[in-house]
C-alpha cells in the first residue's frame, strides 16, 4: 500500500538547510539539506551511526547545530530551544523511550497536554471551577488518544511495568497529546514483532490521515518505510546520499552501496 492514498501533500512546512553538527572532533552531520511537505510522511533512513537521531535532535532543539538553519512555516531560526519548538507544534518520540517511569500511562499522556493547560497554581490548589473543568476537559482529550491507541486497559498502570511495545504506544500517545503539526518519530518500531509493527504502522497512518499531521520518521525496517512513506531521505556517515520517493531511493546506487557496505 502506497502512503499516498487520499491525502494531499501541501507546501513545504519544514525546511532544513545546510545543517552541520559536531561533537568535539566528531562530525555527526555535514551540510544536510532537505524539506518536508505538509501532510506527508517523510522517512529518514540510513545505516547505524548515520546521524539520523542527531538530525531529529537538531530539528527539535535538543542539539544546537554549528551551521545551517531550520525553517518552520517560513520562520527562520538557528537556535531553537526545546520548549519553543514544542510550542510551535513539533512533537517527538524517542528511540530509548523517554517516558516518565514513575507515572501512570494516563499521567504520562496528560503531561503532553501541559502546554494547553492554563490554570495558575492557586487555582489548581483549590481545584475550583475553571481549574477542575480544565482538568476534566484535558482528560477527555487524552482518553480519546487512549482509545485511538487501544491502551484503555492500562491507563492507571505505572508505565515502568508495561511491556516494551505498549510503552512505545504511550510514547506516541504523549506526543500526540501535544496536537502537533509535525510529529518526529525516532524508530517507533524498534524491538517490535511483526504484529506490533503492523499495529504501529496503522496508528501512524491513521494519525496522518485523520489529523493531517506531518510525519518525519526514522526507521530501519525497509518494508515499513517503503510501504508508508511518501518521500525518503537517506543519510550515511552524516551526509545526505539520497532524497526522493521510495522507488527512486530504492534504485539509487549510492544507497545500495551504503547498505551493502562497499568501500568508503
Amino acid at each position: 500500500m502506497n502512503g499516498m492514498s487520499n491525502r494531499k501533500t501541501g507546501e513545504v512546512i519544514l525546511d532544513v538547510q545546510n545543517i552541520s553538527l559536531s561533537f568535539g572532533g566528531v562530525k555527526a552531520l555535514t551540510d544536510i539539506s532537505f524539506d518536508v511537505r505538509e501532510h506527508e510522511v517523510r522517512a529518514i533512513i540510513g545505516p547505524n551511526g548515520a546521524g539520523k537521531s542527531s538530525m531529529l535532535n537538531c530539528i527539535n532543539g535538543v542539539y544546537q547545530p554549528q551551521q545551517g538553519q531550520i525553517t518552520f512555516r517560513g520562520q527562520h531560526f538557528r537556535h531553537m530551544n526545546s520548549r519553543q519548538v514544542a510550542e510551535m507544534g513539533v512533537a517527538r518520540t524517542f528511540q530509548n523511550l523517554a517516558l516518565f517511569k514513575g507515572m501512570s500511562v494516563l499521567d504520562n499522556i496528560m503531561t503532553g497536554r501541559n502546554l494547553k493547560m492554563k490554570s495558575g497554581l492557586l487555582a489548581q490548589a483549590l481545584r475550583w471551577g475553571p481549574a477542575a473543568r480544565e482538568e476534566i476537559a484535558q482528560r477527555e482529550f487524552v482518553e480519546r488518544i487512549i482509545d485511538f491507541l487501544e491502551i484503555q486497559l492500562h491507563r492507571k498502570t505505572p508505565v515502568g511495568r508495561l511491556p516494551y511495545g505498549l510503552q512505545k504506544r504511550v510514547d506516541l500517545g504523549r506526543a500526540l497529546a501535544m496536537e502537533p503539526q509535525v510529529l518526529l518519530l525516532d524508530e517507533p518500531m524498534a524491538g517490535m514483532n511483526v504484529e506490533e509493527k503492523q499495529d504501529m504502522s496503522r496508528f501512524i497512518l491513521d494519525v496522518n490521515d485523520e489529523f493531517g499531521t506531518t510525519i518525519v520518521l526514522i526507521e530501519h525496517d525497509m518494508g515499513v518505510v517503503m510501504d508508508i512513506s511518501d518521500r525518503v531521505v537517506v543519510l550515511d556517515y552524516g551526509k545526505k546520499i539520497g532524497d526522493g520517493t521510495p522507488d527512486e531511493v530504492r534504485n539509487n546506487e549510492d544507497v545500495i552501496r551504503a547498505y551493502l557496505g562497499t568501500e568508503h
Partner: protein
Amino acid sequence: MGFFLETLFGGLMAGMLYALVAIGFVLIFKASGVFNFAQGAMVLFAALTMARFAEWIPRWTGLDNMLLVNLLAACVAAAAMVVVAWLVERLVLRHLVNQEGITLLMATLGISYFLDGAGQLLFGSSTYKIDVGMPKDPMIVLENVFPGGLLLSKEDLYAAAMAAVLVVLLSLFFQKTKTGRALRAVADDHQAAQSIGIPLARIWVIVWSVGGLVALVAGIIWGSKLGVQYSISLVALKAFPVVILGGLTSVPGAILGGLIIGVGEKLSEIYIGPMVGGGIENWFAYVLALAFLLVRPQGLFGDKIIDRV
C-alpha cells in the same frame, strides 16, 4: 603581611585536615557510588577506638613503651574499621545494590547515627587524648624577613606531611594495582562490573576498609590536635563542601578543595568576620561551594553529568 601569611598558612593546614576526611569520601564514592554521610562518624569511631585502647593497653598489659602502645592501639583501631566495613557491606550495601542515590544517602545517614551511638556506648562520651608524639610547640621561621618571624605550627606541618604520604600511597594503589583497577570499574557501573566477574561484595569491603583506614589517619591527626570528642563528627560535615568543590570523584580535587576552603574560611573570618559579628566559619565553606557550583556544576575535577535521551 606577616600576619596575613600566618593566617594563610593556618588556613592551608586546616584545609589539609578537611582534605583528609574528604579523601575518605571520594574513595568510597568512586568505588561504591555511595555518598558516605557516615564518614565523620567513622573518623570519630576510629579515633575513639585508638584513644581508648591507647589508654587500656598499658593498663591491661603493663606495657609502657608509648610507641609500641600507640602502634598496637592503631592496629586495633584499624582492625575495628575493617570489621565495620565488613558489617556495612554485609548488612547494608549488599541489600541496596542499584538503589537510587537518595536511598543510599539515607542509609549512610542511618549508619552515621548508629556509629555515633555505638562509639559513645562502647567507649564513653568524654574527651579523650591521643598522643602520638606530635610536637605541640610552635616554630618560628623567616625571622630575618619579618620582624619576630612567622609563627607556624609544627604539628600542622607533620599532619600535612602525613596526608601527602597517604595521598601518594592511595594514588599508587588505584592506578597501579589490579584491585585498584577493579575498584574503578565498580565505581563506573556496578552491574557491568559484576557481569565481568568482579566480586562486588569483596570490593566493597576493601573500599570501605580503605575509607575506614583513611578515617583513622584523619582521626589520629584531628584527635591529636583537638582531643577526641563528639564534635569531631560535626567538623567532618565541613568535608562535604570540600568534596563538592573538588568534584565527587577526584582525590586531587578533594585536596585542592580542602585547601581552598581552609584558606577561604580563615581569611574571611579574620578580614570579613569583624564586620558582621563573627561566626562566618560556620557557613562560609558551604556558600563558597554553592557559588562555585553555579559556575561549574560538577566541581573542579568532577565528572560531567551527561544525560542521554
